[in-house]
């Protein structure tokens, strides 16, 4: 029994020396954040093309893939005057319930246009359940600098049918 006591003391002493030599294993959190893994899945965002059009076409494949039923998508029709995304439809309503979301990333895999992406941002805290339902306005990233946002006016007719934008298809801001 006595030997075990000393073995325990030896173990903790080693830990003590290690901490003093190499520093603690914890981080002083708000100042120093723990480095995230490369494939960390955090809160979602909706991406845009380089010309400012939204990638999301409102197909709701993400909602179908979601095992937690956390995504709600309502599609709207793009018109030539008010174009949000390439192709016929865009996401009029796009909501994610972060309390339901399990951050599995299946939505990311399901998305045909790479619109929804899980970032390395840690989901925020909130005071009400409602505050955890993030809307499209919160999810959508701002357009690249110097590029107009959505809606835009259609100038290239091929945008009416093609759901994926390629370089060269031009649009004009409203």
């Amino acid at each position, binding site marked *: 029994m006595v030997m075990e006591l000393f073995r325990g*003391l030896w173990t903790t002493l080693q*830990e003590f020396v290690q901490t003093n030599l190499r520093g603690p294993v914890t981080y002083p959190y708000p100042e120093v954040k723990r480095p995230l893994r490369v494939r960390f899945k955090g809160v979602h965002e909706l991406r845009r093309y380089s010309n400012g059009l939204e990638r999301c076409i409102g197909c709701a494949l993400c909602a179908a893939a979601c095992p937690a039923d956390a995504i709600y998508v309502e599609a709207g029709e793009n018109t030539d005057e008010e174009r949000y995304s390439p192709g016929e439809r865009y996401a009029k309503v796009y909501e994610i319930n972060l309390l339901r979301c399990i951050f599995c990333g299946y939505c990311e895999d399901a998305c045909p246009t790479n619109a929804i992406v899980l970032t390395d941002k840690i989901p925020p805290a909130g005071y009400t359940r409602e505050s955890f339902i993030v809307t499209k306005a919160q999810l959508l990233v701002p357009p690249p600098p110097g590029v107009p946002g959505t809606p835009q006016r259609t100038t290239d007719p091929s945008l009416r049918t093609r759901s994926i934008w390629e370089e060269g298809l031009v649009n004009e801001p409203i």
Partner: protein
Amino acid sequence: MVPFLVEAIIKSAILVLLLLTGFAYLTLAERKLVADFQARIGPNRAGPYGLLQPLADAVKLFFKEDFIPEYADRALFVLAPLITLIPAILIFAVIPFGPELTLFGYRTRLQLTDVNVGVLYIVAITSISVYGITLAGWASNNKYALLGGIRASAQMISYELAMGLAIVSVVLTTGTLQVSGIVEAQRNGWLLFLQPLAAIIFFITGLAEIKRAPFDLVEAEQELTAGYLTEYSSMKFALFFMAEYVKMIGFSALMTTFFLGGYLGPFVDHYPALGVVYFTLKVALLIFLMIWIRATLPRIRYDQLMALGWKVLLPLSLANVMGTAVVVALTA
């Protein structure tokens, strides 16, 4: 008479101030050291390296509601923290912090008073503080507190015997009850090497006496919420807390005095001030040892505590006293 009084007042004022600062920073030191043992950072928010943490804690405790439960025995409830704290501080009256030295042209001993039955005084005073804890447990009128108080009294009784006998071996070896005499008797070698068994028993029983891990079952959080402390808040709680840490310093000081040669060390006769340094270092080492043990060992069970006290430590210390007595009688 008057110079003696003035000297005593100045010395005790310095002593109490040192103890209170020591207590405050010991809480921080313990948290920091335990953090090191657990590979954490520890308190670092209040001031650089968390150095202002004790101040923040003190301010917080002052502003907490001072709550007395409705069915508590008010008088005893208020008295209990004092009965616990005062003996803890009183022990320091007879502990020599250094040898005689000349300060501002005044020759004095770094000891409040050198009673010729200092050891007896220490044993008597340490026994009082258990009353405070038991009364606190009883006066709170709370099941957890009462259980904590009962545990405290049982624990103290089982360990005080063995502790007293360990001190008896020290007294037998040195042949004096005067604390400074015990220190001076260790000039040729620490009692730790002469009385290793007594030293070990004294250390273990001391841990139990001051309710440090692994003998902290008086306030075992998992079973008794906080034991006798459960109903205490604000400064009353702080007084108990203070008593606990002052006892920790006090016990280390006693261990240093009895077994580690007190203020003795190289060159202490030429530079008496070095004695204080040696004394502080030895006390700090023992406190580190206690924190180290706290960070390592799990709490022992109530029956194990009793069995260890009555079936192992008491017979061992009795045998040690007998052996010491025989050796002293033969060599005298």
